């Protein structure tokens, strides 16, 4: 049992396990291939359960010969049963995977852990990325933790919190005057000339494997069961499709019984190329030139895995939906008020779409639903400044009573 090669998702051509991401025959994306022959599912489960308290407990299913050292291990984030939210939405069994509970407060710590471990194995001295913010935090922090140089490229108009939580780690933070897709193009060009490990360009096949750990954890935390439905955000579509890959792999290998869940994707209306293509019945995602949404972490106008995300939603009977900025704000508030989890705008997108699906009656009352909350509310503070008002009063009983009456007074 071992990681075997890189393989083109389009034409099947194989390549050695190097820093490469594109098939030279057809330009398709490369993906890590494994040889799991001889795997004993019971033994694999026991090994996982005896493993570390993070993503490296799944290292047999990640692209390494042996478990890498990691001073900032992400993963094993809470999967919380959200009965109050389920009740509000009229759902039966709802779980929130709170992936804000990672070292830099988003799911990106998972993919970066895998990519940077691979960068170290391949001998790179500098790591880099094209980011909408969360990835920037994760790369800067992990590079600092392991002692690598880093360059982090972001759109210059990102949320202040995300810029600050990147720059503090001592990275070279480069703000590009343009959209995320401009940043991405520049990084793709730089990857041609600089001997750097761009985690989501030339190391992308490894990087994306990290998202499978979201699937593995969900299954383990549900008591070795597969959910009936997944609701998750889509930016490039990489995480969305890799959660499915993780679940499919474990079902096929016999680590868990069941079928692949219904996969529902969530986008912001102001940047919804995948949802639009899904609605139009095509798998060609017309790129969004000028994304305009408060969900900046999902504002990818030209989503690399869009076609695969659409295929996944269709094949599993799911949908890809979008929500307005107001619905995103409402989603953030609803999640906070019913679960105690404060998410960033991307989580508001997920909860907004979950709400929409619940209201449309698309979700059966007997379904076990898992919604993926991928980032932390403190990173996008501007989104909810108007969500509440503070009662500011003088420090006196009279002032309190003037504001609240005799609420709470016992007779």
């Amino acid at each position, binding site marked *: 049992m071992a990681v075997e090669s890189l393989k083109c998702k389009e034409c099947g051509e194989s390549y050695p396990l190097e820093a490469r991401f594109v098939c*030279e025959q057809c330009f398709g994306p490369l993906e890590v291939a494994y040889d799991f022959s001889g795997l004993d599912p019971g033994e694999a489960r026991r090994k996982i359960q005896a493993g570390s308290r993070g993503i490296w407990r799944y290292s047999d299913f990640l692209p390494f010969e042996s478990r890498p050292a990691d001073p900032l291990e992400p993963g094993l984030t809470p999967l919380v049963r959200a009965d109050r939210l389920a009740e509000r939405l009229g759902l039966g069994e709802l779980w929130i995977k709170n992936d804000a509970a990672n070292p830099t407060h988003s799911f990106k710590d998972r993919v970066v852990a895998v990519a940077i471990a691979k960068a170290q194995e391949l001998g790179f001295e500098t790591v880099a990325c094209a980011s909408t913010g969360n990835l920037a935090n994760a790369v800067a922090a992990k590079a600092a933790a392991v002692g690598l140089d880093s360059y982090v490229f972001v759109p210059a108009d990102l949320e202040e919190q995300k810029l600050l939580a990147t720059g503090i780690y001592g990275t070279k933070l480069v703000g590009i005057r343009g959209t995320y897709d401009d940043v991405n*193009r520049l990084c793709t*060009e730089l990857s041609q000339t600089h001997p750097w490990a761009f985690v989501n360009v030339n190391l992308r096949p490894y990087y994306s494997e990290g998202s499978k750990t979201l699937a593995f954890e969900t299954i383990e935390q549900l008591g070795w069961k597969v959910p009936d439905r997944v609701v998750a955000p889509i930016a490039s579509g990489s995480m969305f499709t890799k959660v499915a890959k993780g679940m499919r792999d474990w079902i096929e290998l016999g680590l868990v019984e069941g079928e692949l869940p219904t996969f529902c994707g969530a986008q912001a209306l102001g940047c919804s190329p995948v949802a639009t293509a899904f609605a139009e019945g095509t798998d060609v995602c*017309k790129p969004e030139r000028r994304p305009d949404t408060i969900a900046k972490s999902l504002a990818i106008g030209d989503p*690399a895995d869009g076609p695969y995300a659409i295929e996944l939603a269709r094949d599993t009977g799911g949908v890809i939906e979008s929500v307005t900025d107001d619905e995103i704000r409402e989603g953030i508030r609803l999640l906070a008020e019913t679960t105690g989890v404060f998410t960033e705008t991307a989580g508001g997108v997920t909860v907004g779409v979950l709400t929409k699906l619940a209201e449309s009656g698309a979700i059966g009352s007997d379904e076990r639903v898992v919604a993926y909350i991928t980032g932390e509310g403190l990173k996008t503070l501007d989104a909810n400044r108007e969500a509440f008002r503070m009662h500011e009063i003088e420090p006196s009983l009279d002032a309190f009573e003037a504001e609240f009456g005799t609420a709470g007074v016992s007779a």
Partner: protein
Amino acid sequence: MSVTVKIPAQLRAATGGEGELEVEGSTVGEALDAVFDQHDGLRERITQDGDLRRFVNVYVSGEDIRFQDGLDTAVSEGDEVTILPAVAGG
């Protein structure tokens, strides 16, 4: 119209290692055809049934041709036409 077509590293096996080609053409499509005339192996790598493959992006002076007229996008003397893989990012 003489334009420069920039070839990504992943395709240079088909151009004998060349990363930049000077060709004539008045549209992106014509410029690419001129490139294919010089290096036939490139045609099937980046096109399929006369269209660009779905994981190929082409830019004229930094601007994605899908926001212009696709392969019919006009090019001017000295423009740079850049071919890049589309599977990055996210």
